[in-house]
């Protein structure tokens, strides 16, 4: 078995709530791994902790406990410049390419800034800028232009090129195409395929568009209220979801075909996402679960392997 390039072990990130003495358990004991050249999906509703998890991995949020192991190095053992240097191998692509680029910088300047941070000598930066633009399918002639002159799809590709400037091993992409129009999403998504296949970059794709994640990712994690409830290959998870939450989530996405949409069985999720300051005891999904029973209140269900690489954390797995 290959060693994963990134491994997250039992990560916990809590925030202090505005209510005195309460904590928001945004990420509560999450373990996952990414192999080189692999696109992995992370799906769940807003408030489930997927953004906090991604931000904890790159260091934009401080985890309370747990380990982030990059190429065998536990990042929590590092401090200062050693940490910064090592962690630069994990890069983040933000959702909105309109706010992640400086409008008063040219594309060339934005990339050069990243190359300065990467420590590349001045005489090699020009060639590297061209190379980076080439990786994301943009002409070198775009370098003297300003971000505001570019379309959303082009801007997102520049943002990805800037992340690549650090020669990352891992890209964390938080909703990378949700701010883009349908017709240009394909260009950016296909770019992620190129990067993972040609450069061997591992991508964690955080998104709420399930059809898009199914096609892009080879493996997936489903998150609910700070916990991973199911993981599996796309063919397993989307073909045969085993956790009741995954089933409800997949069933609630409307079909673009009106006839199929009218025939789609409704699996209504009752109620709202419970507060992460005071999650339900036992299984966190039990308050909205159609198959919940008394036993679900007592114990947190452990992940059960239902097929190779396919795990669901439900006492009535397959029920």
């Amino acid at each position, binding site marked *: 078995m290959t060693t994963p390039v990134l491994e997250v072990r039992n990560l916990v990130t809590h925030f202090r709530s505005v209510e005195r003495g309460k904590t928001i358990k945004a990420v509560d004991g999450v373990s996952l791994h990414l192999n080189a050249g692999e696109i992995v999906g992370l799906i769940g509703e807003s408030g489930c902790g997927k953004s906090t998890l991604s931000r904890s991995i790159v260091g934009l949020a401080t985890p309370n406990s747990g380990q982030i192991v990059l190429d065998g190095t536990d990042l929590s053992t590092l401090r200062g410049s050693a940490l910064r240097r090592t962690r630069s191998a994990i890069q983040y692509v933000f959702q909105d390419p309109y706010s992640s680029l400086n409008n008063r910088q040219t594309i060339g300047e934005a990339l050069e800034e990243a190359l300065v941070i990467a420590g590349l000598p001045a005489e090699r930066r020009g060639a590297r800028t061209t190379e980076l633009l080439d990786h994301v399918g943009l002409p070198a002639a775009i370098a003297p232009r300003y971000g505001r002159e570019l379309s959303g799809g082009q801007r997102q590709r520049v943002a990805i090129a800037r992340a690549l400037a650090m020669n990352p091993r891992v890209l964390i992409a938080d909703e990378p195409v949700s701010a883009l*129009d349908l017709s*240009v999403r*394909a260009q950016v998504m296909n770019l992620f395929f190129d990067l993972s296949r040609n450069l061997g970059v591992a991508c964690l794709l955080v998104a709420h568009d399930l059809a898009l994640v199914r096609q892009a*990712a080879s493996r997936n994690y489903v998150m609910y209220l700070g916990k991973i409830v199911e993981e599996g*290959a796309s063919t397993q998870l989307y073909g045969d979801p085993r956790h009741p939450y995954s089933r409800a*989530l997949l069933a*609630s996405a409307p079909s*673009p075909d009106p006839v*199929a*949409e009218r025939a789609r069985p409704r699996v209504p999720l009752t109620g709202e996402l419970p507060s992460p300051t005071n999650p339900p005891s036992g299984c966190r999904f039990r308050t909205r679960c159609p198959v919940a029973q008394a036993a679900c209140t007592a114990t947190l269900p452990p992940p059960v392997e239902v097929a190779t690489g396919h795990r669901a954390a439900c006492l009535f797995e397959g029920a």
Partner: protein
Amino acid sequence: MNAVYDIRDLTVDLYTRSAAVRVVDGVSLSVAAGECLAIVGESGSGKTVMSFAPIGLMPEGVSVGLSGGAQLAGADLIGGDEAALARLRGREVAVIFQDPMTALNPARRIGSQIAEVCTLHLGLKGAAAEARALELMRLVGISDPEARLRQYPHELSGGLCQRVVIAMAIAAEPKLLIADEPTTALDVTVQAQILDLLRDLRARMGMAMILITHDIGVVANAADRVAVMYAGRLAEVGPVDQVLRAPTHPYTRALIDAIPRPEDPVGSPFRGLPGMPPQLAGPIGGCAFAPRCPRATPGCATLRPPMRAVAGTPGWQAACHHLTLAVIPKGAAA
């Protein structure tokens, strides 16, 4: 068809300091009572401006040139005075915006915000306004409404806030509801609940609805008819079953093909459209979609295609010179 809202040959020009931009270019549409018309298009296609310009809601800081006709329940909207339009807004036509959190005042309780709308549009005072607010909250399916009245928007989830916004919009029982991406900021599990609520209210109140969205799944779920816009013009309009399942315009086809399908193999490349959306700065002589269209012929670049009826289905129209070639097979425009 008994149209509640009818726009004829609507053209909207925006004059900025340096340029004039034609954002809506000769669009005609109508919506009947109880009907939901979805308007689909990418950013910059003019779908928002087209829906809001006739009722006097325009971006600030630019001057607007409006031409054509727009009628709401028989009353002319264009050319009338602003005071008359202001009286219509909220009473005859109401609007739901995308983000419920910014549509509500964060510093005031839910109950007083809904009651204020009842005072403004229905002339209700004090206890009567509050009673109507409570009634509206029940109508939009908010559980435990007495307690919710006392809460602030930040104490409510996004889905509940959107229900509050809907309650305010329907307070005066408008004839037309314009919903601008009403579920885009919400999760899929909540989206279904809000779409069900809107459908239910529409049926109960006989209200017409314009649903602006970019999500074809939402269109398939909620709309009776759909209008597809490209570069400020109508590309295709018709019943959802026909337009989404057997589109005749190459742009509609390409848009639908760009949606990932369950039968697409995992790891297979995504389908998109070649090229980029048009810049509206200059006038477009021929068909706006011609530069990206797989079936474009030389004539397409010079001659603008008129809206023509698609044979066999009343109300189905498309603006394409190649319309006689009829239904485009799946995947042909990818």
